[in-house]
Structure formats: structure tokens, C-alpha cells
């Protein structure tokens, strides 16, 4: 029956791009409409609706209230802490990511497979465990706690702990983007540069870096997005001291717990804005095929 309908349709349809699609899809329009509407409705309920709810809540009492919520001292402190954390974590992640991808893609060594698997660990381990492990290491009663206390260094319930926890959960991002990219490159361009008299550094900056540029940029964006939005791991190590150790997501939760829905939603718009930004960048990079193309001509 299905086949008959398709044949009937295609015999009527003039040769056109839509005709081709029909040939590929091979399903009658009822099925197509059903599938598409299920997908669209699901996406709307699961993603668009909640986002709209947050935006609606943020602006319900008008723009001045929205701005006032963002300018409260605790909110400003939270934004600043998040920015500082990301500013520290991002370069660390880039450094680690490039080094890890390089050593995996260009060299053969023992334990490489295990190392590659370990990089992915933060993807699968619950952030709470990540946070807790740092408390167990550096907390007052942790392994290094007494020593740190004697040196008057504060890690847990302070910026270093937040940075550590965020760094842990973001470990895979840059490395994961770069490993397949660098593996697909033979290293002959680097060899060519060296044979033309370029130093190691100028080979890296003029040949290697431009070749991995888009992957690196995208990895950075993913890393930044996660670093800004991380809740679980940071929550464990931060101690929730308002205005001091609360990042934006933590502060949102605090406000929410205090029934300040408007303020919580207002602050959330910042996170949503960054999320949308990453979506746009991803779309741009993919539509220009830059992610794929930087691998090979």
C-alpha cells in the first residue's frame, strides 16, 4: 500500500527537489507530518517552553525590576566570581587540551588508550562526586587539610576550590574537540615548515594552531559554557557564602530557595543568553563546515 502510494505520487509530481526528497523519504505525507509534529511538539515542550517560562518570569515585573535584580550586590558578586573562574579555567583547559591532543595524536606511548579514556571520565562521573573528592582531599579534615591550614591556604569554600571543581568537570572539552582533528592531520605540514627553517614555536603558531583553530574555538566555547553553568561540583566545594563563594548558578538556586522567582529568573537569563550564543556559534561553524574542514582540504 505504501509503495503504491509513493509510486502514484511520484508519477504525478514533476521532477523537483521536493520530488527527490519524497523519493528518499519514501513515506506518505501522513507519516511525515506525524513524525515531524511529534519531534517539534516534544522539542517545544521540553526546551522552548521552559526557556520561555524563565524569560517570561524575568521580565514579568518590567525591565526596571529585571535590571535591579541583576544589579544587586550578591548578583554582581556571583557574575564576577563566575567570570573569574571561567577566566582561570579556560586557559588551563586550552593548555591541557592542546597538550593532551598533541600527545595522543602525534606520539605512540604506553597507556595512551587508558589516558584517552580517562579524559572522558568527567563526562560520566557525577559532578557531586567530583566536588566531594576535592573536599576529601583539601577540606579541613581531608588528606591535605591540616597541612593547608598550617600554611594558611584556603581551597575549599573559596575560589581555588571552585576553580578546581570547574576545571575537573571541563577537562574533556577542548581535548575531545582536538584529538580527532589532530589525528586526521598527518603532521606533514609541520614537517614542511621545519624543513623550510621554521622554529618549533613558529611552526606551532603559524601551522599547527591555524589548522586546529576552529576546533579549538569551539572547544573553548563548550568549555566556557560548562564552566559558567556548572552547579553540582561547585555546589559541594563552595559553601554557598552569598556574595563571596556563590557563582551564578548557585546564586540562582539560593534566590529560588528564597522564593525570589523573579530575581532567579533574571539572573538565569544571563546563562540562557550564553547558551544561545553557543548554539549560534555551533550552527555557524557547522553550516560553514569549518569544524570538519579544518581537518583536511
Amino acid at each position, binding site marked *: 500500500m505504501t509503495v503504491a502510494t509513493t509510486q502514484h505520487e511520484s508519477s504525478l509530481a514533476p521532477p523537483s527537489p521536493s520530488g527527490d526528497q519524497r523519493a528518499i523519504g519514501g513515506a506518505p505525507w501522513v507519516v511525515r507530518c506525524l513524525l515531524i509534529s511529534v519531534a517539534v511538539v516534544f522539542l517545544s515542550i521540553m526546551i522552548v517552553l521552559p526557556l520561555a517560562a524563565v524569560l517570561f518570569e524575568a521580565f514579568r515585573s518590567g525591565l526596571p525590576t529585571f535590571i535591579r535584580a541583576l544589579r544587586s550586590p550578591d548578583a554582581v558578586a556571583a557574575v564576577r566570581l563566575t567570570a573569574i573562574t571561567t577566566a582561570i579555567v579556560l586557559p588551563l583547559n586550552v593548555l591541557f587540551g592542546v597538550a593532551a591532543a598533541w600527545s595522543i595524536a602525534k606520539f605512540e606511548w604506553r597507556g595512551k588508550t587508558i589516558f584517552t579514556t580517562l579524559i572522558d571520565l568527567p563526562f560520566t562521573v557525577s559532578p557531586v562526586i567530583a566536588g566531594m573528592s576535592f573536599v576529601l582531599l583539601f577540606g579541613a579534615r581531608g588528606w591535605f587539610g591540616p597541612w593547608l591550614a598550617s600554611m594558611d591556604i584556603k581551597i575549599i569554600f573559596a575560589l581555588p576550590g571552585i576553580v578546581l571543581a570547574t576545571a575537573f568537570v571541563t577537562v574533556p572539552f577542548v581535548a575531545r574537540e582536538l584529538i580527532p582533528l589532530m589525528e586526521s592531520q*598527518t603532521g*606533514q*605540514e609541520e*614537517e*614542511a*615548515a*621545519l*624543513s*623550510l*627553517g*621554521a*622554529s618549533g614555536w*613558529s611552526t606551532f603558531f*603559524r*601551522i599547527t594552531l*591555524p*589548522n586546529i*583553530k576552529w576546533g579549538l574555538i569551539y572547544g573553548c566555547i563548550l568549555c566556557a559554557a560548562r564552566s559558567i553553568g556548572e552547579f553540582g561540583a561547585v555546589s559541594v566545594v563552595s559553601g554557598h557564602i552569598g556574595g563571596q563563594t556563590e557563582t551564578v548558578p548557585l546564586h540562582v538556586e539560593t534566590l529560588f530557595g528564597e522564593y525570589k522567582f523573579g530575581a532567579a529568573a533574571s539572573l538565569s537569563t544571563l546563562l540562557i543568553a550564553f547558551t544561545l550564543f553557543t548554539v549560534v556559534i555551533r550552527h555557524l561553524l557547522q553550516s560553514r563546515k569549518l569544524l570538519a574542514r579544518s581537518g583536511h*582540504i
Partner: protein
Amino acid sequence: MSIEVHNIRKRFGSFVALDDVSLRVNTGELTAILGPSGSGKTSLLRVMAGLETADSGSVHFFEKDVTGRHVRERGVGFVFQHYALFKHMSVFDNVAFGLTVRPRKLRPNRAEIKRRVDELLDLVQMTNYAAQQPSQLSGGQRQRIALARALALEPKVLLLDEPFGALDAKVRAELRRWLRRLHDQVHVTSVFVTHDQEEALEVADRVVVLNQGRVEQIGPPGEVYHSPANAFVCTFLGRVNIFNGRRLPTLPSAVDADGAPVYYVRPHEMDLTADPALAGDSHISGTVTHVNAAGPVVRVELQTIDKQHLIIDVSHDHFRNSRVTRGDTVFAAPKDHRVFEDGAGI
């Protein structure tokens, strides 16, 4: 004055890539390193360039030991099999790269770099492509840009790794003739690696035949083709018919009881006739299985009674007179032959 390679050994794990290789490339010559895949030819070239370190042995450029020198300091132009053009740079920037990465003191100024790049693009006949991206060029064009880039620093030594390997047959043939002309123009001591014997024989001044990490023979193309040093060189360079000596009792050196000498006879070194009376004493009869007249000679393929496959090249005139067609029984006789010590046991 030359490139000299002494007793190079190189292993990759348990695989011996180069086994005591020594050779000499005379100044200004174009030398081909020829061998089947896995013969170590690319490894040898990379050791010469300094892209690979040999386990033992030494490399000398113009009587200077460069074994410990980094590729950066050896001053070689290296052309990669897959061009390795910098794909994020224009053709101009690719060719200019070697000049622009020089230390500031030695770096020519912009105008000088431009003049030099234009000159090189002119040399490789790519003048109008300076602003293009490598992805916009054809394979042959990319290879020429890779060559221009390698020549930018006026290297004393030019090394090319399978320079035409990735190109289609026609472009390949054109480009290798062009490379020959270019070499005659710039006279840089050059070594190129190839697995294509035709390419090596046509282009090179001298051919180094490599097999399983060892040098089998070094000599001018005519010499390695006509006087192969051993069975490998003979079979690798061009087609050859191989006979067991007992089948040809009348050949002079065929007198051998059980050593069973093996004769190597090139297709053009055989006579072909349909008339047994004209075939001579040491003929072999066979059935014609295929005739290919598309070429400068007619290639006739035979199958002998004991299922041996023979190839015989005859002139078109001779072919017409003999009136041989597929399915005929014909008689073939070697006019010339070779015997190698290592040739037994086929």
C-alpha cells in the same frame, strides 16, 4: 662534492627499514630511488632530509657531516608526496613561508620577498595563481607550488617523496618531463623517490634500486635496465620472461645437471615465428592468448604447453608478415638472455 650516505640502518620496531644502505649522489644530478613499497625508499629520503634519525650510519652533504643536524639546519628542499601545502595560506604565502620565517636579521624585505616569490611562481608556471588557496588548485598545480616553496630558500639539495604518486597517468607523465626540464634549468642536486620504474628510467640521471632495505644496484637508467645486477633488478625493471634452463637445452650456458639455471629474457629479446623451420634450435612453442597492437611494438602473449606465460614484443612489420593471430600455435626463441646467481628457485 655530493650527497653521501654511509651504512645507514633504521628499524621501526622489529621491521628493518634500511639495512646498511650506502650511496652517493653527484652534485647537480637527478637521482631516483626506486623500489617496491616497503623497500625503505621513503625512510631513506627522510633520513637524508633529517626528518628521521637513523639508528646508525652517517649522512654527508658536500663533504660535511650533517648526521646530527636538525632538518631545519640542513638546508634541504623537501617535497612531500601529498604536497603538504599550508592549506590556510594563499599560494603566495606558501611559497614565501621559508623566507618569512627567517630570523629578522636575515629576512629579506617585503619587496624582495615578493620579487622572489614571483620569480619562483614564474619558474613553475603558476604566475597567475598567487592569490589562490591550495584547495582551489588541481593535484599537478599543488605539486608545482610545493616545488616552488621548497626552492624558495635556494636549497643545495632537493628531495622529493613520490612527487607524482598522487596524480593521474597523463598529468604524471607531463609533470615528470617538466621536472626534468626544471632540473636542467636550476641544477640543484636532487633525489626523488618512486615505485614507478618507468618514471625513474625516464627522468633520472642515475637510479638507485632499493629492495627490502638494501641497495640492489646503482647506475644510469640504461645500465640498470640492460645490465641488471641481479634477478630482483631484472624483474623489477620492466617485464621479463623467466625460463628454466632445462627447457632450452641448446642455449650455451644451459649445461647444468641439477642447479637448474634460470634464464631471464626481456620481451623484446625474443623472436617469434609461426613457421617451425624458422624458429631455430632452442625454440619454445605455445598458443597465442592475447595480442596487443596498441603501442610502438606489438605485444604477443603466449601460453606454453606446460602452462607458462610468455610475453614477446615484436615490431609491427614483423607482426604483419608473420600473420599471427589469437589461438595460433607459434614458436618463440630467445635471442639473448641473462643468468643470475640469485635467480634460481622461481
